[in-house]
């Protein structure tokens, strides 16, 4: 099984020479499809054999040798409850993305497919790596293919969009690199026999604790990198731009997978490493998340371009995920994890659908459409399902995630304020407004534009790539437990250990001489708060 995991990660990379060597365009496309489908099939046993009860322990571990006797930097990959679903989502989206760009790549096909495959390997690596330096390497590697995907195959303003995307995300992650190195040496001084370690299993355990002052700075450094990636308001400005200019496949991967690296990093790294800072900053992060939810929705409402509308809806949806993560109770965090998958499915589908209509009409402006439901019945059904899933209609996947998040946030002790959940809930209503309004203007009404009268309905290929997504939208919506079970135990454990760890750090801090701001920010002297936390964990 360990080998299987490694094969899954590197198979797309190994597929690149196959594409470059293929003689004609069809062979290139088929080999790319073959490679991604094989990756998906090989990854399935990883899901079936996953030990759900012990989801907290990393499974299928591969551990490489240390870089040197004192530096514990090593190749370390494995899957656990936090990463499994996202890992599977990535392999699942692989073939879909390839099929979606079957006829829409006008130039340099080999490069395009090679970049998609490289991106696949990088994304799988991010979710599977458990050594944070390896995580960082994959995290950064994923920027390179996306840079070229947007820059070469993107829209008219692609150069500015791709530079903004690249540099914006890079600035965040470089600051994180400094934090990462600091943590590495700090942890190395605790671990016996080495002076540097970034092994997540050690860092997240209760043996390793970081002082309150350091936690604050480190949390800010890491959170900045992840929030830019998510993107959380006010770091979202690169996203609509990149989404609008990216080719369809690029938008799908960006929305479905790359944005999840940010939210995933918040749970994977920020929570277990900096629990005190995580909990104290939670209300502030939640405030930004709620602003993002409402702001994203309001801006989406006034968009004239369908793709831009979907892009802003991403800002709104990922606000929910961040809100759920920082609520820090099992319900909300579980909701956040399943919502990451949901957003991947529904927003991925929406970008695919926008791409399909763009391929036909070469426009994405809402005003150019209207009444096309009559011409494209199957398209309408698919579009409707994806729209409703995105809005969060009960019975479809979006509802499950949003309900859990709102429910968890409502009762969250960290927020200690029901306003967050109430305001966020208004985001659901706004989502219905902007999505349904857009749907109505595009699909219904009189069919006036001559161009639109010539539209043809979806072909078998397009139906074939949307159907799997739709199946999962229903499956998650109707029987979510099939998916939530993977992360449940780990999330519960993680929250308990993090809370305990934060109390232990607080306890140690009482004996230390901390600066005034740290004392008051973390409430080091307040006995009552820590006791109430203790009660709530039980």
């Amino acid at each position: 099984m360990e080998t299987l995991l490694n094969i899954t990660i590197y198979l797309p990379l190994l597929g690149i020479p196959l594409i470059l060597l293929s003689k004609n365009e069809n062979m290139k496309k088929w080999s790319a499809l073959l490679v991604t489908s094989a990756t998906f099939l090989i990854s399935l046993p990883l899901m079936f054999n996953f030990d759900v009860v012990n989801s907290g322990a990393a499974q299928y571990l591969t551990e490489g040798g240390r870089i040197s006797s004192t530096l514990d930097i090593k190749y370390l990959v494995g899957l656990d409850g936090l990463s499994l679903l996202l890992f599977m989502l990535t392999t699942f989206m692989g073939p879909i993305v390839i099929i979606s760009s079957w006829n829409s790549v006008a130039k340099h096909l080999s490069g395009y497919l090679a970049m998609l495959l490289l991106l696949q390997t990088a994304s799988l690596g991010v979710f599977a790596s458990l050594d944070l330096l390896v995580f960082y390497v994959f995290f950064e590697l994923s920027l390179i293919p996306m840079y070229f995907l947007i820059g070469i195959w993107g829209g008219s303003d692609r150069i500015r969009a791709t530079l903004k995307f690249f540099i914006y995300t890079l600035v965040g992650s470089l600051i994180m690199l400094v934090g990462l190195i600091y943590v590495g040496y700090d942890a190395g001084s605790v671990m016996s026999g080495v002076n540097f370690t970034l092994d997540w299993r050690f860092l997240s355990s209760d043996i390793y604790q970081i002082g309150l002052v350091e936690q604050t700075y480190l949390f800010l450094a890491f959170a900045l990198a992840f929030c830019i990636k998510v993107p959380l308001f006010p770091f979202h400005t690169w996203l609509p731009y990149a989404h609008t200019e990216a080719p369809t496949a690029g938008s799908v991967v960006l929305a479905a997978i790359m944005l999840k690296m940010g939210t995933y990093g918040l749970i994977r790294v920020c929570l277990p490493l900096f629990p005190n800072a995580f909990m104290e900053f939670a209300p502030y992060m939640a405030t930004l998340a709620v602003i993002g939810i409402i702001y994203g929705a309001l801006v989406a409402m006034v968009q004239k371009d369908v793709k831009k509308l979907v892009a802003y809806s991403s800002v709104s949806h990922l606000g929910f995920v961040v809100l759920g993560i920082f609520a820090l109770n099992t319900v909300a965090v579980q909701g956040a994890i399943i919502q990451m998958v949901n957003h991947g499915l529904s927003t991925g589908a929406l970008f695919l659908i926008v791409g399909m209509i763009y391929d036909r009409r070469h426009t994405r402006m809402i005003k150019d459409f209207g009444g096309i439901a009559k011409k494209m019945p199957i398209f309408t059904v698919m579009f409707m399902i994806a729209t409703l899933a995105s809005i969060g209609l009960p019975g479809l996947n979006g509802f499950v995630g949003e309900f859990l998040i709102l429910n968890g946030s409502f009762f969250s002790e960290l927020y200690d304020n029901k306003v967050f959940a109430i305001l966020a809930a208004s985001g659901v209503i706004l989502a219905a407004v902007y999505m349904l309004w857009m749907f109505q203007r595009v699909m219904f009404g009189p069919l006036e534009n001559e161009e639109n009268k010539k539209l043809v309905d979806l072909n078998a290929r397009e139906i074939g790539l949307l159907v799997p997504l739709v199946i999962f939208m229903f499956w998650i919506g109707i029987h979510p437990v099939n998916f939530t079970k993977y992360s449940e135990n780990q999330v519960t454990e993680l929250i308990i250990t993090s809370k305990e760890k934060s109390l232990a750090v607080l306890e140690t801090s009482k004996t230390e001489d901390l600066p005034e701001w740290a004392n008051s920010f973390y409430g080091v002297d307040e006995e009552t708060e820590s006791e109430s936390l203790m009660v709530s964990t039980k």
Partner: protein
Amino acid sequence: MDYLGDLQAFLPGIITAVAGLAVITIEALKSGHKSAYWVTSFSLIVALFFGIQSLGTPLQEAFSGMLVHGGIAAFGNVIILLGTLFCVFLSNDYLESIDHNYNEVYGMILFATSGMICLAGANDLISLFLGLETMSICLYVMAGLIKNEKQGAEGALKYFLLGAFSTGFLLYGAALLYGATGTTSIPGIGAAASSDLLFLAGAALLLIGFLFKVSAVPFHMWTPDVYQATPTTLTAYMATASKAATFMAMILVLSRALPSVEGLDWQAVLSVVAIITMIFGNIIALVQDNIKRMLAYSSIAHAGYALVGLSAATPEGYSAVAFYLFAYTIMNVGAFGVVAYYERNKGLDFSDVNNLAGLGFKKPMMGVMMSLFLFSLAGIPPFVGFVGKYYVFAAAINANMVPLAIVGVLASAASVYYYLRVMVYLYFREAHKETEMIDPSFLYKGALVILALLTVYYGIEPILPFGGLMELITGF
């Protein structure tokens, strides 16, 4: 006296010097004969072979304490010879196509390399000065190679005058140190270090001399002009091998001759210089349209990153700098090599970034390699440049210099823009007009491919399960 051992210790230097004499003789007997190039390549390969063999041995003195060999000095030799070898491979075709393929160039390269090896293994201020001057004088000649154009003469003269000026500083510093301690031996100076004014002034002047040679701000003024005027492959040589040699000498001097004496806080001085060098180099590079000038400013910035490692002043920091120089050498020679390839095409001035539009798809292999080298220079994983930067910043963080590391990463984030800009032209813009692109020779392509493979290999090497390069960098 163990004469044989002494000779063995300096074997790479002797090989290159003898080969240099041979090349000059060949040129004197049969002007323009091709064998000079082959003698050069062969001798460098042999020297590199002996250099690699002595990797991992402990640092020892030779020539009655004038030189050291093994340890970090051996690693320095390998970097210098590797850089030189690839520059020579690339130079043959490039100089041919600009009609400047004189055999004297190879002679100069070999003599300069011999000087660099002496410099990177100096254990005495006398041998240090000897190595430095042998290297510099040869480089002055190379800078003026294109003598018919105004630019060439300007660059060479500027380099020579400022170089001579900085040598004055270095020599003055050496004299003051001798006056303060009564010895020119580097460990001897370290042992007799005191905080009297003579010693401090000597150390400061010595540092200025070094900082000039590695083109740290504010001693960088000559760099862009000289780099632009020199034939590109020789620029690569100047930018990598000579910098590597000077940094290696700095490591030896800083770690052994200048211990922390009251009042002599060179760590702080170097970190300030590192900060302004990184910021200045990267910001000026942002607005350059000429790729060679852009790479010149980028090499200034890279000297800044290396200075970050030096100012940590820990064994870890010194090995980080050594690794960084290795990384910098392979990726920079690669980048200059691809630029040289573009320049060889007639019709447009391909050192102007605007004229690179659309070339990435026209010659896919060159385009991919250029992107690879540029991503590596920008410090994006999984390339060797990232590993180098990582070690350097890690050393600084471990030495409690977190702000320095933060400035460093922010500067390198800014640098990404100008590296990406080249790729924007190569790939994202349409070609202005159709130009015939020549096919590089097998050797030329092969040299670049090897550099590209090294760039990727040493980028992922740290997580590979077997022993790494870093373990070979020992002994200060």
